[in-house]
């Protein structure tokens, strides 16, 4: 299946990744190369006896206890903008409508 320029832009929108116009032709070519390569899995028609999951057979969950996170730095030191316990971001465009 071939991926076109519009589809790459759509996927980039879903992934929230800005793509420069100049990079687009090469990106379209490389994604097509990768996707056509992985499509060889179409040759496999067998179905596995059961699904596979590596690791423990059952997930061990620890007790759900509310406790302070043991962090050596507060979020205010890590975040680009932080005030009064909140991470600050620009407005979402949708909020301006209506």
């Amino acid at each position, binding site marked *: 299946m071939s*991926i076109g320029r519009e*589809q*790459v832009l759509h*996927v*980039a929108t*879903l*992934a*929230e*990744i*800005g*793509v*420069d116009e100049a*990079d687009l032709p090469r*990106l379209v070519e*490389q*994604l097509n*190369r*990768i*996707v056509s*390569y*992985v*499509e*060889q*899995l*179409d*040759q*496999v028609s*067998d*179905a*596995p*006896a*059961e*699904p*596979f*999951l*590596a*690791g*423990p057979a059952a*997930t*061990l*969950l*620890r007790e759900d206890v509310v406790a302070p996170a*043991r*962090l*050596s*730095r*507060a*979020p205010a030191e*890590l*975040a*680009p*903008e932080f005030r009064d316990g909140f*991470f600050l*971001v*620009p*407005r*979402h*465009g949708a909020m301006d409508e209506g």
Partner: protein
Amino acid sequence: MTSVPIHAEVSRREPAGTVARELARRLQSAEPLNATLHWSQSALDAEAARIATLDPASPLYAMPLALKDNLVTTEEPTTCGSRILEGYVSPFTGTAVGRLRDAGALVACKANMDEFAMGSSTEHSAYGRVKHPLDPDRVPGGSSGGSAALVAAGVVPAALGSETGGSVRQPASFCGVVGVKPSYGRVSRYGLVAFGSSLDCISVFGRTVDDAARVLSVMSGLDPLDATTVDRPAMAVPSPLRDLRGLTVGLPTEYFPADLHPGVRAGLDRTIAAARELGAEIREVSLPYSRYAVPTYYIIAPAEAAANLARYDGVRYGPRRVGSEGDIRSLYRATRGAGFGAEVRRRILVGTYVLSAGYYDAYYRKAQAVRALIAQDFQRALGPGGVDLLLTPTTPTPAFKAGEKTEDPVAMYLADIFVCAISLAGLPAMSLPVGRDQGLPIGAQIIAPEFEEGRMLAAAGALERVLGAAEEVR
């Protein structure tokens, strides 16, 4: 650059301060390799002071250890080789690194890597490529190429890397050092920056099998902070076997293609002959679905990466870029578009594509089914009536030239053709140096059943002794 490693036994006799000073000299002289991202004399001195308070009988007392830069620590930045985490310092230290430090390991540096561990050559670091210690025009392999190069150059006796699809075994083979990937679930992933969560394993490089085994032993075991660790005792350090009598070693025919590089084939022939001389029974086996491992991996790993890397958005940590439209989505796109390098962007886009509406069944669900078939092949080969261990080449060629595969992502992906399947199956495996071809190291891969790392390392110890591999790297 010195060729004499600071071995653990030497470290144990030296005051930690002496080790730290010698380490600083070695790190300085290794700078041309571009294998480190962060180290400082003050951090080494602080490590030496910390170790001076520990019991000298601690299992890794004053053993210098390099950490791949996707293992978080509170003392040094953790960038994952990416601009999107430039200057980031974690507010916590991961479980494996914490256990190693408690056991006396001296953290030497953070090592360069392919950005977010995506790559097979360490050419995809935002901070420049790592050079192969034996030939600066070649790559050390990847994505843990910085860690591999530092061990191969004799800067540290051991280093941590991480594997998602072969990122320790492949560079270990290229650089001529030991590289061990444990079973999935053997070592806690808490504090390893996530790439493909169903595949990621903290793994270890050593100049010898014993060094790698001792590091793995300390960091293994159940961790309440990682629900995918298994409830088993920590791995015991095995003694190398005197011989391989009673062991059956399988050679999967699919891993010995007719066009295998002659130098790699010669290295494997030597290893098979050594195993036979040590008394192992050698038997051919078949793993027919392994031929689909690379395409399966390049659906599952990007899909998981697309989800895991969604957190890098310029909101909670890391540098931020404000987009031209000034709203939040524009901020996301500008931050992520500029912060991620080309290979990471490609993989996120592929991962998003295979998970998107209309394509999920055709790609992601299909890949999950093939992953199960690949794992079943190994369960059959290594199960009742099967063999005890598998032996294959680690890589199809010795270390390749820098720039040789950067233009064709699929050509780069195929460098992992012999290591990927084992990651998908969650099994332990390792690369053992078994000689050189025209000066470049060759690695043999040993694969064991789930949680049989001890059997694998004990057999590797016997082969290491007979092949003189440990002598060669010194």
